[in-house]
């Protein structure tokens, strides 16, 4: 891995006139995809808001069962991973291919750390029996407490799933970047996965105060 990575030139697909059109098409498509991701998560946020409206005290009570320190740690981890992601894209833009690979590996490691912290949190919830209704098994001052944990597990679960998908995509990027596919004239997949990754970060930015920091 000490030798420099050699650039592999990219060919524009047959139905595009030039790489400018190709890049802009991909980016527009990606934003449309992000739009649908936002609306996909919007269902969860609507459910959250409605049930918080119906059971305000239960939500405050329930939120105390979550460890805000873990949440804050994960927020910081994801923000750092977003930063390394943009730096990976930028490295490709300025033809620093090796640096690009390193930034991608850093992003992947941060994502892994996020999942590990998440795993510890889940383990503690499960061991206390704070679970969705069918498995809920804990003492509670509020009889609707299972709803909070139902929503908590669905929201963080789906977000976690997106993180896992993102990790898969980053591995794919690392492989391609090592082969020298990304350079100043072609970095479309990097940019697209980057956008996706920032969206995952974005959702967590809202999940953190909504779930961990109530009352």
């Amino acid at each position, binding site marked *: 891995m000490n030798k420099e990575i050699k650039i592999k030139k990219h060919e524009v697909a047959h139905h595009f006139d030039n*790489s400018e059109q190709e890049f802009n098409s991909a*980016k527009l498509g990606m934003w449309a995809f992000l739009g649908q991701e936002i609306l996909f998560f919007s269902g969860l946020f609507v459910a959250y808001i409605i049930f918080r409206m119906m059971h305000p005290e239960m939500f405050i009570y329930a939120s105390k069962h979550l460890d805000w320190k873990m949440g804050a740690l994960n927020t910081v981890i994801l923000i750092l991973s977003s*930063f390394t992601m943009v730096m990976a894209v*930028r490295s490709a833009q300025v033809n620093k291919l090796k640096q690009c690979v390193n930034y991608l590996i850093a992003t992947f490691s941060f994502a892994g750390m996020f999942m590990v912290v998440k795993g510890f949190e889940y383990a503690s919830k499960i061991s206390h029996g704070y679970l969705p209704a069918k498995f809920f098994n804990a003492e509670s001052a509020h009889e609707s407490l299972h709803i909070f944990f139902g929503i908590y597990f669905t929201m963080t679960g789906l977000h976690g799933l997106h993180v896992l998908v993102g990790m898969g995509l980053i591995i794919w990027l690392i492989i391609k970047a090592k082969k020298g596919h990304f350079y100043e*004239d072609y970095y479309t997949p990097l940019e697209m996965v980057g956008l996706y990754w920032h969206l995952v970060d*974005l959702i967590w930015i809202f999940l953190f105060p909504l779930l961990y920091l109530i009352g």
Partner: protein
Amino acid sequence: MSKDNNHGHHFIVPVKFYVGTLIALLILTVITVAAAQIDLGAAANNVLAMLIASVKAGLVICFFMGMFWDKGFNRIILFSTLAFFGIFITFCVLDIGFRGDTYKYEKGKYNLKQVVTPLKENKYHD
């Protein structure tokens, strides 16, 4: 057909924007956590938390996602998804927040015990 492999003049964002965003995001995270420890009343705390989260989201969108330098239509997509999210939540709240208002003053007026009589036997034809 011409196949020029140039991206034209792509704007390469200076590193200072990225580092600046990172620092701002980290500081805002600390502020969010700190603000949650102070009791301003439930409503004010919520508004503050959401305000900070929105600023953070704005930073990520503008600089990390490059919307600040981006094409107009990508912005339209983003704002319209947010608008539709707004519509979604508004109408749901219009329903769930206002149920049962109409008959509020008529409680006890009709005094219906049982509106529907359940069928005694299964009237299916099978």
